[in-house]
């Protein structure tokens, strides 16, 4: 299957969308890409404290899939799903503060990058142990089922995470319990430096879902509206009691694992080939060719995003870093960590 070549013009706007919402999807694509570009600048100024993880070339898959959810649904992103969190209402300033380890970041400087959550808005922060969010999200979806709430969970994993035991256990549990969960496997070709061919012996990661009796399909991850439509079908099925669906979104990681990574293992030709299938450019072409947006609409959104990010960066930069002693609170609900073991800190010279 050849994925991601050329823009496909649908004859009509996919179900659930309007022209206004199509433009909003563009806004989130541009917001995701531009926010990451701002982060790169801050990273180069050493204002981003830890690693920086890009989703360049994968924004379409994050935004298109998250856009298929309703308010009340909960998703759990992976490191390259910034776009999905923005769709769910995470603020760029929050993401900036996280990366910059500010005291007023969503986790008060305790966690990094996009590891944060807002269950009311509908996103649950990941941890770095790949695959773990699959059983956790299966439990969230189980809670929806137990309360007979018409809500859906969505969890993102990468091609690498499909090799973990937690992925297997979570998929199987979700399938047996028939919980309303959509699993998106972003097949971007690499887990750090490891190509998919060294990760798994199957050609299509959708086959993994079939092994659990879960309806599974493969979609062009760089075609925003195809991702949206495929996810929407899966979300509708889950909401109607049809249980989980696995979607393999075929895409490509155009940057390294993190900003420091030289990408020595990716050929320049391969990267260039995928540049020509850029999901954002394809989406803009599609909007304009279909008459759903004018160049002026696009320019206006670009300007709005730039303006919002100017403000967000300024706001994030002015915040302070957390005081050291704030590190002790909140390990438990009902007790603070005893400062006693650090008795030596209170000794006189």
């Amino acid at each position: 299957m050849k994925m991601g070549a050329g823009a496909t013009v649908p004859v009509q706007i996919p179900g659930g969308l309007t022209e206004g919402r199509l433009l909003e999807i563009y806004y989130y694509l541009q917001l995701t890409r531009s926010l990451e570009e701002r982060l790169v600048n801050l990273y180069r100024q050493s204002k981003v404290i830890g690693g920086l993880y890009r989703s360049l070339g994968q924004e379409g898959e994050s935004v298109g899939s998250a856009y298929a959810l309703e308010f009340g649904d909960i998703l759990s992103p992976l490191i390259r799903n910034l776009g999905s969190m923005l769709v769910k209402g995470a603020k760029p300033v929050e993401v900036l503060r996280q990366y910059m380890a500010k005291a007023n970041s969503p986790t008060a400087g305790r966690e990094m990058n996009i590891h944060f959550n807002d269950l009311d808005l509908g996103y649950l922060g990941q941890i770095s142990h790949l695959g773990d969010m699959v059983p956790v999200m299966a439990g969230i979806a189980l809670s929806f089922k137990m309360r007979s709430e018409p809500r859906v969970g969505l969890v993102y994993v990468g091609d690498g995470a499909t090799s973990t035991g937690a992925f297997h256990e979570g998929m199987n549990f979700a399938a047996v319990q028939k919980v309303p969960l959509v699993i998106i496997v972003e097949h971007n070709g690499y887990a750090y430096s490891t190509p998919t061919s060294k990760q798994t012996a199957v050609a299509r990661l959708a086959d993994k879902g079939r092994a659990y009796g879960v309806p599974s399909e493969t979609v062009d991850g760089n075609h925003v509206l195809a991702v949206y439509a495929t996810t929407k079908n899966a979300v509708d099925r889950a909401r109607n009691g049809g249980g989980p669906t696995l979607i393999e979104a075929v895409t490509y990681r155009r940057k390294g694992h993190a900003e420091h990574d030289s990408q020595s293992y990716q050929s320049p030709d391969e990267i260039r080939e995928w540049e020509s299938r850029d999901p954002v450019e394809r989406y803009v072409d599609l909007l304009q060719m279909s008459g759903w947006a004018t160049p002026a609409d696009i320019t206006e959104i670009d300007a709005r995003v730039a303006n919002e990010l100017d403000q967000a960066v300024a706001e994030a930069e002015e915040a302070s870093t957390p005081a050291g002693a704030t590190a002790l609170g909140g390990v438990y609900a009902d007790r603070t960590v005893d400062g006693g073991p650090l008795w030596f800190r209170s000794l006189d010279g």
Partner: protein
Amino acid sequence: MAEITYLEALRQGLEEELERDDRVFILGEDVGEYGGAFKVTDGFHERFGPDRIIDTPISEAAIVGAAAGAAHMGFRPVAEMQFIDFISCAYDILTNYVATARYRAGLSTPLVVRGPAGGYVRGGPFHSQMPEAAFFHTPGLKLVCPATARDAKGLIKAAIRDDDPVIYFEHKYLYRRIKEDLNGADDVTPIGKARVAREGNDLTIVSWSAVFWKALEAAGELEDEDGAGIEVLDLRTLVPMDDQAIVSSVKKTNRLLIVHEDTRTGGVAGEITARVNEQAFEWLDAPIRRVTAHDTPLPYAPTLEDYVLPQTADIVTAARWLLAY
């Protein structure tokens, strides 16, 4: 009221919490229609239905992970490990995801992971473990180890009502061997409080779970044969630890022996020793000593298992050494 066993007390505690709070549910392997490998959840499936007593695949990581997700959403899941030995399969989810959730993300994760622990039952290397120390080291988890029927019930209730994740180590040797009249009380044993089970002035023995009974037996023998007054503390909770109870007893008796079933190196006794060193060094008249299992996996043959695990005679010998110091 009649006397009930440790297992029946645990069962009652679970049943009463299922009744009083519809956010409580149970999930695990064979816990539903079959009623659990040890019949702890016997009858629950008929009484509370398959939505609240959930049979799962053999997937400890998924059991604990799903419990965590449901707990975030306001449920109070109780996840059964068929034997606590298998909790190691969920080690990643428990230590990386569950234990850190409140700290890193402000997430409430009120779940209980419980299961039959411990040896003296000829269960071999994989059905006899007491893996308390593996979790003792992880901030964010609470650990309880009931020794009595009253606490089997009181601590499961406290664990379910607690807003943080609790690992509940129930001792399978005690399941049907001890009985107590609980007067049907809805008593909750507070987490973090030790109990002075026997008073004395000459030596403190700190213990918990099944070996607590051996410590108590040794104390009786030492009083009968040596006229020694042994104070026996049932620690009941390992995290958070009741330092105050240990320290005030040590200040009274000036001698401390720690007895635990888990292996020695990196065991909880080492931490208790350090805490007493920090908080009551000047009151000690003798070195702190510990009686623990040998540092081996737990073998199957009765002669081997008995050799590896602490026995009453070991406690008596160690106590006499301390009393004579």
